[in-house]
């Protein structure tokens, strides 16, 4: 037991990184493997874009007319769904790894939010830019729209940025909640969460139907437009993110 003094010295010189740095370390952990976090989403977007392009060109080549209806394109929706699922997967896989690296759950959650917010910013920037490219080129000269879709790719700049970013973050928040529930209670938790969401959904449909309010619901969507809908989604987004945080704080990390 002659090593006590030196060990004490080693222990005392070990600096504790600041909160900001610890959170940033988790963020970096998400990007450590650039393929799944950076390359893959853009490969998917690129592939969808390519498929669309082939379809546009073949229609345009056979009809020699401007395309109609492509502004209703839901192609970019796949990306939102992808990121929602990516959030669940990322939490499932990186949580136990980060815990193995002695991160706290708090730092892990906040670092994960930062990582996906950065993803969202990048995604928003590229989608908005491409929506303007489609505007400027009149849909590549054939009125084709993928990014300048009527949901989030029209209207003034701030609207395009706002809808894309917060729609993205809404999907992420749902994914993070599902991820936290899975990490804490495994599949049984997800079944219960799914059941709760289903009950809420069915309850809404039942109430709307019984009160004959479907026209009002339709009118609300038409009135609010995508910007308004996304603005309302900020509420469930924040609620999911906060619940996800508290669920994860008590999640064990077992082998």
């Amino acid at each position, binding site marked *: 037991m002659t090593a006590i003094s030196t060990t004490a010295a080693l222990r005392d010189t070990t600096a504790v990184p600041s909160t900001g740095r610890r959170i940033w370390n988790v963020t970096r952990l998400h990007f450590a493997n650039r393929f799944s976090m950076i390359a893959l989403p853009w490969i998917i977007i690129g592939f969808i874009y390519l498929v669309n392009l082939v379809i546009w060109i073949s229609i345009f080549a056979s009809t020699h007319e401007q395309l109609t209806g492509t502004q209703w394109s839901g192609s970019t929706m796949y990306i939102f769904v992808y990121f929602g699922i990516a959030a669940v997967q990322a939490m499932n896989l990186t949580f*136990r790894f980060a815990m193995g690296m002695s991160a706290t759950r708090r730092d892990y959650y906040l670092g994960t939010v930062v990582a996906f917010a950065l993803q969202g910013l990048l995604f928003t920037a590229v989608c908005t830019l491409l929506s303007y490219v489609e505007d400027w080129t009149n849909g590549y000269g054939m009125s084709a729209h993928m990014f300048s879709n009527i949901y989030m790719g029209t209207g003034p700049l701030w609207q395009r940025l706002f809808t894309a970013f917060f729609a993205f973050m809404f999907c992420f928040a749902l994914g993070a909640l599902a991820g936290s529930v899975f990490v804490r209670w495994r599949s049984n938790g997800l079944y219960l969460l799914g059941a709760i969401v289903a009950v809420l959904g069915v309850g809404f449909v039942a109430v709307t139907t019984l009160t004959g309010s479907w026209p009002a619901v339709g009118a609300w969507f038409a009135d609010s437009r995508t910007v308004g809908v996304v603005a309302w989604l900020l509420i469930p987004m924040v609620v999911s993110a906060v619940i996800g945080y508290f669920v994860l704080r008590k999640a064990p990390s077992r082998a």
Partner: protein
Amino acid sequence: MTDTATPVVEVSGLTKRFGDVVALDDVTLTVRPGAITGLLGRNGAGKTTLMQTITGQDFANSGEIRVFGEHPVENAKVLSRISFIKEGQKYPDEFKAKHVFACAPWFYENWDAEFAAQLIDDFQLPVNRRIRKLSRGQLSAVGVIVGLASRAPLTFFDEPYLGLDAVARQTFYDRLLADYGEHPRTIILSTHLIDEVANMLEHVVVIDRGRIIMDESADSARESATTVVGPRGAIDAFVAGRRVLHREGIGGLASVTVERLDADERREALAAGLELAPVSLQQLIVRTTNSATTDFGAEEPSSIKEGTRS
């Protein structure tokens, strides 16, 4: 063991249940700094659960845990000084070993990249291969390298070398001891291969069915029992009134493991024509955690159990 250094780990009255199973049953334990402690016990004895609750990865049902004097759960100040290497560590799906070693320095202040590179070489670990494609031994090597190169003031190795061959295990022991000599720290090593690590351990904690049944220095643990070998009659006379941990017999010969003998008792045994043999740490733990007695002699009932006096 009279040093007054602040304990690195202090656990008192710790209980952890999984449903009906009591994994840790009122565990009280103190780990002093600057030693290699062996946490030994059978499968399912509670070793991993104990380490997981000490490192804040799992939550205790009741009891107090202090690590570096503070509660470890969600405590970055404590956790940033801990490296916990466990057999079942999960890695992100697409990760290669090099990604793990790229992340590790962000989390461990004392990370030594040069040492890590040397260990990668020692274990011949393919860093560009996906973790999922690594063999069990290579996967263990990833953990061992992180645990050694992180040089955390408190390092846990939980069955770190599943699938590592004898040569690789020896490499691990050699590197661990050499680095521990240069950079002393507190190491808690849980393993089944007791004989292999016996010489490294300075302190031994044995856990059985969620309870701590031994907590002493390795030297005093080894001296806590002796095997006496000789003619059955002489043995029976000698061990009368002593606590017998284990008994074996073939024909007229008997071999009995008894608790600590003092100098007079040793002389007495030698004078009676008996041989004294040291008990290895592994044998001792097998004896204390397993009460079965083997007796190949057919002429007398083999009913001597741990705790009974013959």
